[in-house]
Every structure is written in structure tokens, then in C-alpha cells.
């Protein structure tokens, strides 16, 4: 079970916390403010009331030991930058995801060592723009990506000895066999970039490649199972 520390219990983090599956992840809320920490505790989350400015305190909650991922959701960009810097110094392999307030802070956070920056205002602005220019697409994305309906986007790793090994993407015909749409593929032979499957290139699937599919959750689960089942059978 991956251990995740979420810094800041506030408006910005509520949604992310509620979206994280507690069966998959071990969540720890870290909050410097005692009243907010109490609130998180009340909600039943594991909570730590510490001052993030001290390395010792960070160590005490397990940073640099068993925590694999941290979310920096503190209210000020400067606090997030500070936290990112301290956390990166404590653990080189930590996965750090930070939220930013102003556009300039994004670069600073990257420089401080964050792995992923999320700019809620930018995304929101783009969403509003899309709602005006392409309302139908915006609705579809709401229903697929944002899970308002049963449709989801999922990624599937091709395991060793999979029956999909050595097949070409054109041979998959997921839309006929599994009622899924193949959105894209990460072909490890070509690097870590995602290639959208829009008929430009036929990729050969190898172990370690990742395919991204869209479809009803039941079909996604079934397909995932199929891919993994074949693997365990062969071993």
C-alpha cells in the first residue's frame, strides 16, 4: 500500500483527498493549523499536526522513509516551494505533486524539485473556454474523464508474457472485441511519450508498454483481468 502525505487540509485538497481510494493508499493529512487538523481528524483521516518548516518534524511523519508521494496543497505558493525543497532534500525518489496559485510559481516549484505541477486556475480557464467554443466536447469530457457517468479513462500496463505481446495496435480492435476505445499508447521503444492512436503509426506492443483506453468501467475491468489472467496462467 502506497503511503501518501497530503500537506494542507483546505478547499484545495478536499477534492483530491476524496478522490483518492483509501483501500489503495494509506493517506496521512499533514496540517500546521491545529483547528484544521482537528477537523480532518474528525472526518476520520489519519492526521499529523506538525510544522512543515522543520526537517525533524518531516522526518517524524515518515518522509524520507516510507512515504512515497506527497501532495503540496498549502495555501501559499511560497510555503509549497519551501516544502518541496525540504522534501526533495530528504528523499530523492519522492513523488511530489504541487498546486500553484500564480503562473510564475510553477517554474519555481519545478526548480525546487516538484514532479508535477497542477494549476487549477489555468485548467479552469481552459475549461470555461472549451465550454464556450466546444460545449458538446466539454460535456462529453465531463462525463468520461470526470466520471459523471460510467465512462472512464484507464491505463493498462502490458505485463511479461502477455497474450498481447507482439501484437500490433491495429490488430487489437478493442472497439469490436471489448467495447473500448484505444486512446493512445506509450511505446517504450520510442521513449516515454504518449502517442495518440489516430492512425498515424502502427505500434507493436511489448511488455512494459502502456495502453490508454476509454470505456465503461465494467469492460475496462474485464479487459484488465484478461490481460493479467493470461500472464499468471503462463507462469
Amino acid at each position: 500500500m502506497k503511503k501518501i502525505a497530503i500537506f494542507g487540509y483546505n478547499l484545495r485538497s478536499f477534492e483530491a483527498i476524496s478522490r483518492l481510494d483509501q483501500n489503495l493508499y494509506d493517506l496521512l493529512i499533514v496540517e500546521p493549523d491545529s483547528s484544521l487538523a482537528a477537523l480532518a481528524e474528525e472526518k476520520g483521516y489519519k492526521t499529523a499536526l506538525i510544522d512543515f518548516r522543520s526537517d525533524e518534524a518531516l522526518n517524524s511523519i515518515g518522509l524520507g522513509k516510507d512515504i512515497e508521494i506527497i501532495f503540496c496543497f498549502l495555501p501559499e505558493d511560497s510555503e509549497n516551494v519551501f516544502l518541496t525543497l525540504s522534501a526533495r532534500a530528504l528523499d530523492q525518489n519522492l513523488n511530489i505533486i504541487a498546486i500553484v496559485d500564480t503562473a510564475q510559481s510553477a517554474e519555481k516549484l519545478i526548480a525546487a524539485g516538484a514532479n508535477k505541477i497542477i494549476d487549477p486556475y489555468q485548467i479552469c480557464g481552459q475549461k470555461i473556454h472549451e465550454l464556450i467554443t466546444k460545449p458538446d466536447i466539454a460535456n462529453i469530457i465531463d462525463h468520461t474523464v470526470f466520471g459523471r457517468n460510467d465512462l472512464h479513462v484507464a491505463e493498462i500496463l502490458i505485463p511479461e508474457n502477455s497474450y498481447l505481446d507482439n501484437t500490433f495496435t491495429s490488430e487489437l480492435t478493442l472497439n469490436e472485441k471489448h467495447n473500448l476505445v484505444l486512446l493512445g499508447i506509450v511505446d517504450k521503444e520510442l521513449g516515454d511519450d504518449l502517442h495518440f492512436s489516430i492512425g498515424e503509426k502502427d505500434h507493436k506492443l511489448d511488455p512494459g508498454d502502456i495502453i490508454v483506453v476509454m470505456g465503461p468501467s465494467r469492460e475496462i475491468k474485464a479487459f484488465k483481468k484478461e490481460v493479467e489472467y493470461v500472464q499468471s496462467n503462463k507462469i
Partner: protein
Amino acid sequence: MLARIIVYFCYFLKTSDRYRQTKRFFYDLLENPQSKMKSYFDVFMICLVMLSVFFLVYSVEHTLNTTGEFFEQVVVFIFISEYLLRAWLFSDSHQIIIKEYEKTEYLNIRFNLLNTLRLVFAKKLEYMLSLFAIIDLLAILPSYRPLRILRILLIFRMFKLFRYSNSIKVFADVLASKRFELITLAIFMGFLVFISSIAIYLFENNSSGGNVRHLYDAFYWSIVTISTVGYGDITPITFGGRLVAITLILTGLGVLAFFTSIIVAAFSDKMHTLRENRTYAELSRYNDFIIICGFGRVGQEVAKQFKKDQQAFVIIDKDEHNIFLAKEQQFLAIHDDASINAVLINAGINNGATAVLCTTGNDVINVYITLTSRYLNPEINIISRANRQDNVSKLYQAGANTVIQPFEIAGLLAAEYIGQPVAFEAILGILQDQKQISMETLIVQPNCLLEKQKIGKLDFENRKLMLVGVISTNQKHRKHRNRYKVKNQHFYFNPEQNFELQEQDILVVLGRKYSIEYFQDQIKKSSLNIGS
């Protein structure tokens, strides 16, 4: 009998479409500040006046040849037509007559033609006595031969220039707004000039050995001195005269500084409104623009996107710094409170705006703006931002069509990134149109190559596109699987091979921009070909 004919004629004019259209045409040409024709006409008249003044200056030392004479006559003809047309446009005489006639009919008294005509004439006289009409008339009169003596009045042609630009009106407005200060100053200056004129006359008259011959000279000297111009053609020589001069110069400096400061202050007060008026004028040219309320981070991002699309928009924000930022990027911006009805009306919520975006960081303000906008325009598309989950329902209640939560999307993406980093990239790629790949809609137009086609027959792969689904309201598709309700239509995800497309269905495809555009063109072309 005559009265009857006139009244009959008036009713005829009232019902005549052609008369109305003609009048409308000349109104657009001469008076309507919104019309394009007027601006062309104004430029034309300015050129004409300039040319005629040029001929006038030329004729001071030369005699005009026949071409010049002819030109002068054409100019005068145009001026006279303009004068008469304006007099005609000023009031609707037939309406006055009809009104009077109907009044007498109602009261059952005799219709007095003479009285009525007097009313009509009074109205026209009102026009003739207006400042601009007098200038117009004075610009024409000197061309009449017996009145050649008045040639000097041709100077008035230059005043005509003011008619064709707004500058004089703006200046008059500015002066009018500072009426009290200016009157105070004028009275003070009047006293000052009066006292100094008398004083200088007493000290410097001819009999005392000075240069001031009479009171007019004294007045002239006072004005020249108080304004700190000081030509020096009349100079005081006596001790008393010089003392008057010193006092007058020092007070003059004060008066001048005071006057300048009044004018400057008036202009800077007015500047804000002037600029705002320019924004409104520019907005009135568009008939499809978007009102963005709040130029915070979200507003800035939206504005950036619209700028890329060349979509017209206007920003309303209460915060001075935000307005400064917007103006710096040359966006149309209004520094005002968007929750005030008048501000939204002026911005054109009922006049060309297609959507209102409430993007302030304060949910209370967003709800208020949403409510105001919905009240002012029940049809308009309102998209509002909510920062707290509990306010989403309030915004919908206030009338928003769509509510967006920045932190919800961010939280969702953050969670997605942890579990499925690759899927996250795919989603972000689609959301942000990265790598020129985007999701677009294609509408099945009547008679186009898609209509009545089976999905299996359309080779999307070959077109370098990927079909995600079809949006439709058509009942025929109901039997197909993967049907999802999206707003008031259905989304058919991954339609089967035998899915038959119907008119007005919408295909949702993923692909590079140019493959989508190319396919779109093909659809359009095919619908035109078969149709013709």
C-alpha cells in the same frame, strides 16, 4: 379646403414607407452617430470645407478662374442642401399637424391651419437658431453676390469643421462640468481687469505723459498683461503705472495657474468616462462577444484563450490593478462593479453578448453577478466559477448554465496522476489541446456524405481520426448500446459498425487539427454538391 388637403397629405406621409425610408437614409447620413455612412460623410465634408477655404485664401491675392468659380458653386450647393436637409430632419412637421388635427377633432373645435403652421414654423425656427445652424448659414450667405461684402464671414466655414468631429462637444462638456469654478474665476478676472484698466488710464493717460490714449487702450493693455503675454506696444512709464503693472502681472500668474488647473482637472475627471465610452462604442460594433466578470487568474486564462481564437470579449472588474493588467494587454476593459444592472446593460448583455462568465474569486459576488445577468437576459449563457462545493447549487439556483470548480478539477487530476500517470497525460493532452491533438465535433449536415452511412463504412483510421462516439437526439438510435444521457441528448460511446448516421447527428472525433478540418471541409462540400 386647403387645410383638408394639407391634413390629407400629412396622413399620406405618415403611412408612406418610401418617405420614412428616405428620411431614415438622410438621418443615417447626417445625424445618426452610430451609422457608418455618417462617418464617411463627415470626412467628405471636412475635405470639402478645407478645399473651399483653400480657394478662399487663394482668391485673396488672385482671381479665380471658371473652374474655381464652378467649384465654389458646387460647394455652396452642397452646403445649402445640407442645411435644408438638416432643417427637414430636425422635426416631423406632418406629425405636428396630425397631432393638432386630432386634438381639434377630439375636442370638436375648428381646425386652425394658421396656428398649426405657426407651431411647425416655431419648431423649424428652433433649429435655425441653434449654434450649428447659424454657423452653417453664415458659411453659405457670403457666396450670394449682393452680400459679397460679407466675404470675411467665410471664416465661418472653418467653424463648420467642428460640426463633423466630436472634439468641440467634448470640450464644451468639460467646460460645462466646471461651470461654477469658471464663473467664479471670470467674475474675479472681470473685477481685476476693470480695476487695472481704470488705474492704468488714470496713471498713464496722454495728459499725464503716458501712452494710454483712451479706456479701450487701457482695457487692451490689462488683458495683454494679465495673461502674461505682454506685447510691449503700450508700456507704463510712470511710477504708479508700473506699480499697477507689477501687481497685475503677479495676480495674472495666479489667475492663469488657477484657470489651467481647472481645465486639466476637468479633463482628467472626464477622461475616465471618455475612455469607457470608447470601450462601449467599440463593443457596439460586435454582435458576438463575451462578458468576463473578474480578471483574476481564471479570467486571465480565459482571456488568453479567446485572444488566440480572435473572439471578442470585454472584461469587467472592480479592482484597479486587474483593469490595469487588462489594459496593458489591450483588452477591452470596464472598471466597474459587474453586479450593477447599468454596467451590464452598457456592456451589452442584451446587445450582442452571447455569454457571461463569472470568474471572480468570491462566490458571493459570483452568485450576485449570475443573478443579475439572468434577470437582465433570460436567454444568455452563464458560466460561473464556484470555489466551494456548497455554493454550486446556489449558483445553479441563481441561473447559471454551468458551474465550474477549479479545485475540483485540480483535485481530480491530482488523484488521477497518482493512480494512472499515463491516462492523466492523455486527459491533460485532450483538455489542453496539446501536440495539436484535440477532440472536436463534426455535424452530419443534410445530404452530406455521412448521412445514412453506416459507421463501419467510414474509414476513420485512413482519415487519421479516431471516433469516440456520436451525440444525437434522434429516436432511431435508441436501440443501440452504450447510450449515455448527456444534458438533453444522448451520447453513444463507441457506436457499432451498423450504426446508421442521421441528419444533425454529431460525431465526436479525436485527431490532429488539420485532419479534422480537412474532413469537415469534405462534409461541407458534399452537402453543397448534392443539394445543388
